[in-house]
């Protein structure tokens, strides 16, 4: 299944070039699955492929899946996106993981196919640049930090120290936090992308002694920060994070992260039948604990399935769009619907990192912070 795209060998492929079968469902999965930041893309891809395997015929039709590596490079991703749409003739693309790839592929894909994002949800695509063919299946980026801000408000935390890497998503994250947080922000720090050593920031936190710390430090930065936070003996100050402590980083953070809180829209512990079945099947097949990116990939595939089943063909774009908007599938997140900007209305939770009995680590939902929560950009979207 992984390489149905073999037909596309660079030259002399003419004889095999697939004629456009209008009645074959073709789905592209375009995530970054090579190089250092591959782990998130692997989660999303594995989640989507698991769904396809369980369904057999996605949408009740003959299905062809093209798994493509975005390589984490926007220009490569832009080319691969066009390749999927123009050459392979896919009707749906699941991707990408990173916001900077989103900008590169959204244009070419939405011209003639549907783009379902299993992770990235930059504010511009929920607001002014929203598109009829673009669906943010996972979340809008700013929603995660607001979960923690609201939790701090609810628990009476009056001051917080906040930090993020200095790039667009980092700024969005801190702005999202501040838009909801009612206490005072004692310090707002931006660290260079990819920073290794956080002694300087930890010293500032220790000196200021805030009531809580909010951090958005994805990937390796988060691992470094969480470990060093623990080692500096700062765990008495609650560290609450978004995209920093999850199943992709917990294998490295382990006990250092246990007890830390994060905001999320899904966790393997979520008590929804579809979710529990998904987690069990996922761990059985891939032997690692799925993170929210895997859930995003799985839900994206299930959403496509529901829309194609409802319409019965893959050529009527308007009908397919309406069916996607209806979101009539059993999401691993339970109740799920789309706002008018094609971003989800769903619950958001506070989750705690725990060590399981089998020695693996995962996040566990502690409480529901927002119910049926829509993002803040709906009004800016004129579709």
């Amino acid at each position, binding site marked *: 299944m992984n*390489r149905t*795209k*073999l037909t*596309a*060998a*660079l*030259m*002399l*492929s*003419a004889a095999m*070039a697939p004629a456009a079968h209008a009645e074959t469902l073709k789905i592209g999965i375009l995530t970054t*699955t*090579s*190089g250092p930041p*591959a782990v998130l893309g692997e989660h999303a891809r594995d989640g989507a492929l698991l769904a396809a395997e369980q369904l057999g015929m996605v949408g009740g039709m003959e299905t062809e899946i093209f798994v493509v*590596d975005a*390589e984490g*490079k*926007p*220009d490569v991703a*832009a*080319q691969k996106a*066009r*390749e999927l749409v*123009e*050459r392979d003739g896919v009707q749906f693309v699941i991707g990408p993981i990173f*916001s*900077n790839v*989103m*900008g*590169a592929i*959204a*244009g*070419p894909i939405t011209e003639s196919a549907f783009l379902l994002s299993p992770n990235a949800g*930059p504010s511009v695509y929920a607001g002014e640049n929203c598109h009829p063919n673009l669906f943010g299946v996972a979340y809008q980026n700013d929603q995660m930090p607001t979960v923690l801000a609201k939790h701090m408000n609810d628990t009476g935390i009056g001051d917080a120290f906040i930090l993020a890497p*200095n*790039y*667009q*998503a980092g*700024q969005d994250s801190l702005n999202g936090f501040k838009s909801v947080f009612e206490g005072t922000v004692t310090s707002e720090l931006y660290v260079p*992308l990819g920073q290794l050593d956080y002694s300087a920031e930890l010293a500032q936190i220790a000196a200021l002694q805030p009531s809580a710390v909010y951090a958005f430090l994805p990937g390796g930065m988060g691992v470094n920060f969480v470990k060093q936070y623990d080692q500096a003996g700062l765990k008495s100050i609650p560290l609450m994070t978004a995209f920093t402590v999850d199943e992709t980083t917990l294998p490295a953070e382990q006990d250092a992260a246990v007890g830390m809180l994060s905001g999320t829209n899904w966790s393997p512990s979520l008590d929804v039948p579809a979710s529990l079945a998904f987690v069990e099947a996922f761990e059985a097949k891939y032997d690692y604990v799925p993170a929210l990116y895997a859930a995003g990939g799985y839900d994206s595939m299930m959403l496509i399935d529901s829309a194609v089943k409802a319409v019965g063909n893959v050529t009527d774009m308007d009908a397919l769009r309406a069916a996607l908007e209806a979101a009539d599938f059993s999401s691993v997140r339970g109740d799920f619907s789309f706002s008018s900007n094609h971003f989800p209305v769903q619950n958001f939770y506070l989750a705690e990192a725990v060590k399981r009995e089998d020695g693996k680590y995962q996040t566990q939902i502690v409480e529901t912070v927002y119910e049926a929560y829509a993002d803040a950009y709906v009004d800016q979207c004129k579709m």
Partner: protein
Amino acid sequence: MSPLAPRLKAALALFLLMALVPPVVTALGDPFLTVVANRMLVFAIAALSLDLILGYGAMVSFGHAAYLGFGAYAVALGARWGLSDLLAQILLGMAMSAGFALVTGAISLRTKGVYFIMITLAFAQMAYFFFVAQSSLGGDDGVALQARSSLLGVSLEGDMALYYVTLGALMTIYAGLYRLTGSRFGRVLKGTRENALRMQAMGYRPFPYQLVAYVIAACLCSVAGVLLANLTEYVSPAYMGWHRSGELIVMLVFGGIGTLTGAVAGALVAVGLEEVLAIFSDHWRLGFGLVLVLVVLFSPDGLTGLAKRLGIGGRGNG
């Protein structure tokens, strides 16, 4: 010049081959390969421009991708300021690149060898972080272009049109550099590469020659940036990170330095190889790395050396 030097023949063969790509792949029913081939041509321009300073001037710049970025941002800024003509954008890109290259080149040329490698990297990284900090241009997320540029009123929306414009640019730049490196200027540059002291003794101050070459290479690389932005209809600081600069060096050395033809061949093969290997496996980097190591171990002077040993043109130019 006559009869044609083998490397010139090899280059003409490559250009002819590339000129045939669009009609052939269209006839074979896979017109999309034109876009893939276009990417190869864009990087051929970038590698070619690097060859002028690296191959002929022994100035190993580890920051050359910065100019790819300047070219790309010239398109984004141009579009914003109502400059949609490709030539106008190229001029803008060249102006930005020339300014940056003039200042940083003058400082960098105080150093040599590995110090030059690292100081050019430093300046390129500063440019990179400058664009990452520009929120109005999307910062790290980059900015999508609404449309491709036009050339003298003709739209380049069609892949075929952009392809031949790129090929034309590549051939023009190749011809220009071929003339330039064969001229007195080029000979002084090469002389400096071989023995700077002797050139000084002969009364040439290497510095102005090296600096002019550095600025020319920067301007030519920005043309590749303008075309890359048009090809992907997207502009991002990722175009100018140190990874990219490293990849440009790799393409050039892979093809063989100091022949111009080697730069073109290296870029075409390296980009093509990445494309083909990525079809087969997520772990394509393993195969790509292996090819690089094997080429170095068994074929000094890269593909050019290989071609020479197989007796098919591409003589090195010393």
